[in-house]
């Protein structure tokens, strides 16, 4: 079979960088799905883009669409044939309608019984025609973060479209594909880079995608984002090495830079030495966020250089480099101005102005928030039995939000916390205090460093717990993909801090108090329940992803109890470690019987004197032993030993259920036996509800 190629390119005005990865992905999956639907599966779809174009390349297409057979169902068998098996008018009409002879009808099973069916032959259409339709559908179905209209306002797309290239051919791209998109009819050519080579590039009879990519490259355009990235990295490394520096790794920025250009140009600029006196965080943020520059370092400190992308291969008059240097200098001068202005007063003296900064319409200002966080932080530190003293925690909470009213954070909101930390340090605050302020927004998620010390951990947890409690109390509860206040991330950060700092406080208890503080005691119980579920869900997520236990293990552990996260994690790890051991095989089944029985009848009054049978006495002494062992093991943090001690209950339990009729006639005896089982249940639930573990 001959193998053909298809090439589609839309040339647009500059497309937002954040839309392009999605465009490539949607074009690929859209074309794959449509090609499969058209009987053209197996062709390879690749997509590319630059800041001005989106390109689809399909390789390995047949020259013509294969013929297809389609089954169409008709009337029920009963209505289609008479008793002697001859076709009724209904069957004849159906066959005629489908264009098949009536004796070719078959009987098939439908959802409502047997029906007749005809097999229709659908002849394959010319592939370019099919591709034209597919292109139209896939491109029009693209979703963007934001769409627009232009000109007469008749079309909606991510940006105005200026040229559509659509060619098809075996070996050479010889045939036009008749598609029209947003008022632009497809042609057989495209245009080069706006500055480097803006002329038209004719591609009829081009040697497939390879020639298209090569001709574009000659015209200043690198169509493949991964190639642009490779070139940018190579150039960056060379430019850094020339001045004996390293490129500060910044994959996130690099990924964006790749989408901002057609040509992967990189240049190095020099900074005046005086800017190196600014705090490094301010320097890096200015260059990185505001100028999208890569930062160079030497011996782990910011060096007086930066790398900027430019959408051209050269800088004939040095304008581009000088311009970028001027702008970086201007931005840093501006930052230096704000820095000097902020330093005229201490950070502490600014907290008074927080009553003018709104945290949330229903939850009041940041002054209110600072107050709430202070109370919660004291509670968390106390509950976690940290020996850090009240003073540093109180001070860190007082200072934490004060940087929101500094000029620097006004200018660089992404530096909140960090700016406060720097100013607190410069004001001579204790190390524990300024570091806590500095680190209050870490970690951002499962990755990234934790606050450096216990004060920072307490502040970070208390701040987020207040946010969570406040938002839930105010009814701002995340649902589905809607989480405008990033509460999932906040909850996960709390869980991580508690697990890893660690903070052994009972989250459930702290959250109840936090919720009460934010709801004036007029708490909506359903919202509190939702909050507890929400945080428990993050604990579960943490156990499965960060602690790497199976979902079932997390379930068993959390069903028993949850909230003291380090304890939750230790129990989960222990259960996960020992649950495969032989002794546990029977345990799940036995414990399930215990739970069912206790749940059904409730606890009875415990009277050991009534328990006289051998199996009863044996279980009783085993439980008493286990209670002591579990307590000791948990006390020294050896949860696996606790689990092994529980495993020793399997045999006595088995004998108990074999030899003893729990639900006996004698009420007192029954109560005593149930109470024994309740004791068994209780000692298990200190670790996990093992009935939720399936047998191995």
């Amino acid at each position, binding site marked *: 079979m001959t193998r053909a190629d298809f090439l589609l390119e839309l040339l647009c005005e500059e497309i937002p960088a954040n839309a392009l990865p999605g465009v490539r992905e949607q074009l690929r999956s859209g074309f794959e799905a449509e090609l499969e639907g058209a009987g053209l599966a197996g062709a390879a779809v690749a997509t590319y883009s630059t800041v001005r174009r989106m390109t689809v390349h399909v390789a390995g297409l047949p020259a013509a669409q294969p013929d297809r057979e389609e089954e169409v169902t008709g009337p029920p068998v009963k209505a289609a044939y008479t008793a002697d098996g001859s076709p009724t008018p209904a069957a004849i009409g159906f066959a005629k309608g489908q264009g098949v002879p009536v004796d070719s009808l078959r009987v098939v099973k439908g959802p409502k019984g047997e029906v007749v069916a005809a097999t229709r032959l659908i002849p394959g259409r010319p592939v370019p025609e099919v591709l034209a339709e597919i292109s139209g559908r896939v491109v029009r179905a693209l979703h963007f973060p934001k769409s627009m209209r232009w000109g007469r306002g008749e079309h909606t797309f991510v940006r105005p479209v200026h040229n559509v290239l659509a060619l098809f051919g075996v070996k050479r791209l010889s045939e036009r594909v008749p598609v029209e998109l947003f008022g632009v009819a497809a042609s057989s050519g495209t245009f080069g880079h706006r500055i480097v080579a803006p002329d038209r590039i004719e591609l009829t009879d081009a040697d497939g995608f390879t020639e298209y990519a090569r001709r574009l490259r*000659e015209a200043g355009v690198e169509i493949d984002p991964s190639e642009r990235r490779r070139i940018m990295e190579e150039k960056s490394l060379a430019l850094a090495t020339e001045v004996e520096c390293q490129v500060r790794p910044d994959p996130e920025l690099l990924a964006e830079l790749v989408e901002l250009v057609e040509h992967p140009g990189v240049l190095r600029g020099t900074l005046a030495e005086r800017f190196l006196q600014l705090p490094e965080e301010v320097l890096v943020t200015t260059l990185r966020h505001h100028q999208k520059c890569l930062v160079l370092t030497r011996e782990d400190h910011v060096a007086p250089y930066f790398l900027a992308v430019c959408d051209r291969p050269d800088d004939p008059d040095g304008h581009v480099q000088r311009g970028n240097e*001027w702008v970086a200098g201007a931005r840093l001068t501006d930052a230096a101005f704000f820095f000097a202005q902020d330093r005229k007063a201490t950070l502490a003296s600014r907290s008074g102005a927080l009553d003018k900064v709104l945290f949330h319409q229903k939850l009041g200002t940041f002054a209110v928030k600072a107050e709430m966080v202070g109370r919660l932080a004291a509670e968390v530190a106390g509950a976690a039995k940290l020996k850090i003293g009240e003073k540093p925690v109180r001070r860190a909470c007082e200072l934490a939000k004060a940087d929101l009213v500094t000029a620097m954070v006004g200018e660089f909101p992404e530096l909140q916390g960090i700016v406060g930390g720097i100013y607190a340090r410069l004001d001579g605050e204790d190390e524990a205090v300024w570091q806590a302020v500095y680190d209050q927004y870490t970690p951002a998620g499962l990755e990234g460093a934790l606050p450096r010390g216990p004060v920072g951990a307490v502040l970070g947890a208390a701040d987020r717990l207040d946010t969570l409690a406040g938002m839930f109390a105010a009814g701002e509860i995340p649902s589905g993909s809607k989480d405008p206040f990033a509460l999932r991330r906040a909850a996960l950060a709390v869980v991580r801090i508690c697990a890893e700092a660690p903070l052994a406080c009972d989250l459930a208890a702290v959250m109840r108090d936090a919720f009460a503080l934010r709801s004036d005691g007029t708490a909506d119980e359903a919202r509190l329940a939702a909050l507890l579920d929400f945080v428990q869900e993050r604990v579960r997520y943490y156990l499965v992803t960060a602690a790497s236990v199976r979902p079932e293990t997390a379930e068993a552990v959390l069903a028993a109890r949850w909230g003291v996260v380090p304890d939750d994690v230790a129990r989960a790890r222990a259960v996960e470690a020992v649950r495969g051991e032989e002794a546990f095989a029977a345990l799940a089944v036995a414990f399930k019987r215990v739970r069912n029985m206790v749940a059904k009848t409730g606890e009875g009054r415990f009277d050991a004197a009534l328990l006289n049978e051998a199996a009863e006495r044996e279980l009783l002494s085993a439980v008493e032993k286990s209670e002591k062992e579990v307590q000791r093991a948990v006390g020294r943090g050896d949860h696996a030993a606790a689990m092994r001690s529980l495993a020793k209950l399997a045999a006595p339990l088995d004998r108990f259920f074999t030899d003893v009729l729990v639900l006996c006639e004698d009420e007192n005896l029954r109560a005593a036996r149930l109470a024994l089982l309740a004791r068994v249940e209780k000692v298990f639930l200190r670790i996990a509800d093992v009935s939720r573990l399936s047998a191995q």
Partner: protein
Amino acid sequence: MLDFAVAVARPPREVDVDLQELILSLSRFWSEQGCVVQQPYDIEVGAGTMHPETFLRVLGPEPYRVAYVQPSRRPADARFGENPFRFGKHFQMQVILKPSPEDVQQVYLESLAALGIDPKAHDVRFEEDNWESPTLGAWGVGWQVLLDGMEITQFTYFQQAGGIDLKPISAELTYGLERIAMFLQRKDNGFEMRWGGGLDYGKVRHQDEVELSRYAFDVADVAMLRRHFEDWEREAGRCLEQEEPLVIPGLEAALKMSHLFNLMDARGAVAVTERVALIGRVRKIAVRCARAYLEQRERLGFPLGGNGNSKANGKRAAGKTNGRADER
């Protein structure tokens, strides 16, 4: 990778242009592109967009092209003339092209060439930057134009104004004149940038900045500002309730409200909880003006033409665009 021919060595040519030449060159260029060269609006505004030549003209079907300088007041940005980059009042060159022409980016690049900036020797990039004005019920999609890394123009395709979906779509080009002049003259202090007539910007404007800052931050009588905000709100209502609504006086009242709000805000007199409500009151008037303007133009039979199917053009926005690439 194929390398491009190394550029022929030529002496670097810095463009050296003072502020008033910049204004003259841009005005001439856009005049040649068929724009009405308008004058600044004689009421304090925060941006050239608030000038009726933009805010009202972008509504409805009638084509229009206009260019003008607009002094733009942002009292909260004022810095007592101490910050070399921040001004409480700065100048914008505002251009509206309605409908946005097919080659609008190309024409824009030519306007740079008219300033002596040869795009072939620079890096000109269009980076996403969308625009929204809650006060005007307006938003648009577009870019900031970067020249060698410097933001020199805001380029916006207006999608909605006064809460009304626009059709046709206007392109708005806003040149930040101080920035461009500073950049071209390589001055890192705005007050040292050459204005023209033998004077620099500081000699012409520094004292204004000092006094306007003092007024906005320390002196303005908040009670008076608040009272006038309410006075002008009532006055706007009276203008728009006339049997034939007075569109321009109504809009002027809204512009005054907006500036009074900005002054109160700079003075720190806007409580966080009332901010949204105050902006909403200005928007309410702006939206009424936009509707009244459209009705007025329709009554007049859309004198500037534009194939006026007024029903479709004046339809109120049903909601935000849904982000799909459907053709309309």
